[in-house]
């Protein structure tokens, strides 16, 4: 089905001094796609994500969100337009409880900030609790985030990103730092929670991943990076079988 792509990058490039972190990135992602970004460390995946969120400004090219040029915009503005991201190292409010973290996230995403409306009003708490339940985090709701184990922190980080029902969700290594036996259950929870977001159509998800099993299971499409460029783009079965990917990403083909 044709239409305006949810995300389009045209000739995007950026360099830090002599280092070319990204070059000639061209990509079109349609609404509802589940895309995995793969590549070895330093290949340019996170740089690309940072450019989408507005944290970094590309030296060349444009990035469009649903047809709108977001290249020059501030991170906060881009968030307002419907882009949300989670972090490789969870960025949470350590001193607050899990519930309070969700309350802050919902208040910010809804742009519902008031000088007198209680943050802990029943309606807000109910909504936050519902979201926590979807992520199996409700048992931790009263605990201080600093005390939580790594896997729970990661989930909370992602849950918070999803509170605003973003059009485009960027997950930066959602299963990194999570033990092997927890990875699949965690992705099941995340993808399951995504399935609920049907009111405005499917959420578009980009996730950076190193674990190929996760990629094969959960991605509709794989985009592989190497040395700042895209070396493969297609369904997992095909993309992961290309020589370039086998050589530079999965390591199956010795260089």
């Amino acid at each position, binding site marked *: 089905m044709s239409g305006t792509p949810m995300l389009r990058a045209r000739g995007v490039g950026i360099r830090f001094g002599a280092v070319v972190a990204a070059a000639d990135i061209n990509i079109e992602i349609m609404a509802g796609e589940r895309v995995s970004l793969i590549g070895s460390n330093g290949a340019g995946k996170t740089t690309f994500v940072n450019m989408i969120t507005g944290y970094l400004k590309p030296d060349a090219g444009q990035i469009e969100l649903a047809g709108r040029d977001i290249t020059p915009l501030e991170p906060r503005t881009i968030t307002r337009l419907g882009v949300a991201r989670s972090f490789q190292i969870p*960025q949470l*409010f350590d001193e*607050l409880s899990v519930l309070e973290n969700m309350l802050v996230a919902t208040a910010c995403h809804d742009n519902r*900030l008031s000088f007198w409306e209680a*943050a*802990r009003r029943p309606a807000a708490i109910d909504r936050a609790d519902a979201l926590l339940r979807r992520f199996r985090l409700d048992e931790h709701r009263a605990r201080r985030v600093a005390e939580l184990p790594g896997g729970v922190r990661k989930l909370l980080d992602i849950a*918070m990103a999803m509170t605003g029902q973003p059009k485009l969700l960027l997950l930066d290594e959602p299963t990194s730092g999570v033990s092997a036996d927890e990875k699949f259950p965690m992705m099941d929870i995340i993808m399951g929670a995504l399935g609920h977001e049907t009111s405005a159509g499917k959420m578009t998800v980009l996730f950076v991943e190193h674990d190929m099993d996760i990629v094969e299971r959960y991605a509709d499409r794989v985009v592989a990076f190497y040395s700042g460029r895209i070396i493969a783009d297609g369904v997992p079965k095909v993309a992961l079988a290309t020589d370039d990917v086998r050589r530079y990403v999965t390591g199956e083909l010795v260089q």
Partner: protein
Amino acid sequence: MIGMLFTVVLVLAGLLMPKWLTFLVTMAAAQGLVSLGILLLMRGGVVSFGQGMVFALGGYAAALGYSRLGLTDALGLTLLGGVTAMLVAAPFAPMLARYRGIFFAMLTLALSMVIYGLLMKIELMGGSDGFNIGRPTLLGQTLSDARVGYVMYSLTIVTAGVMALLSRVYFDSTRGLLTVAVRDNELRVEYLGGSVRQAMMINFILAAFAGGMGGALVVMSLGHIDPNFSYWTTSGEFVFVAILAGWQSVLAVFLASTVLEVVRSFSSSYFPNTWQLALGLFLLFVIRFLTRGIGSLWIKENRR
């Protein structure tokens, strides 16, 4: 709710209190307002070492309003103090909102010392001696010698009570929760679509309003103003009270302010050479062992 009750009780109790006590409590409550401002900023993660600036601005606004503009209504002057301090501080808010830690502390300190320097040298405002003002009126009524103390007391207590209540509402609000989130992780707040800068600016301006009112109330009770209101040691005392109180309980701020006021009042007669020593030791004790301030002694849960 308890706070409101407490306010009413205090106002009534004032009728029975001796003059020196009502004066002491008045000063404590008025200065508590300034420390309340510091509390506001501390919740966002910064400590202002220059709150004397808004204290002086509010005080001079009230004093000048009285002597130059003929405004004698105590309530009007209180509001004038708060608004003036807020208006003067507002242009600095965007800039100050970008600083943290020592640099925020030093910048607020520097600004308050600039104001101090200006006030010392401007003869129009009394220069280094400052100047006196007469008795304020309230709602059109002139106040007799006997009544003025109690009236100022009541006005101050009520103002403090109202501000305490409003603070509590603000702290419990979504913006209030956002403030503590900013203190914890500014990056995440930005990525959630919240504005860190806006939150910090708002807190600074609100703190200025509270501090300005405190300054006005002190001037009216004291009958005198001078540049020392903006000196760094004055700012230091407000910070002292805020640290002592911690940021759990608004009531703790006013209690801590009373403690300081009591120590200060009795110091010259009873222990002129050891009261600062006592304060210093007390502060060390609180910093070392009561990291959440004295408020944490009765508020057990992790309240914000």
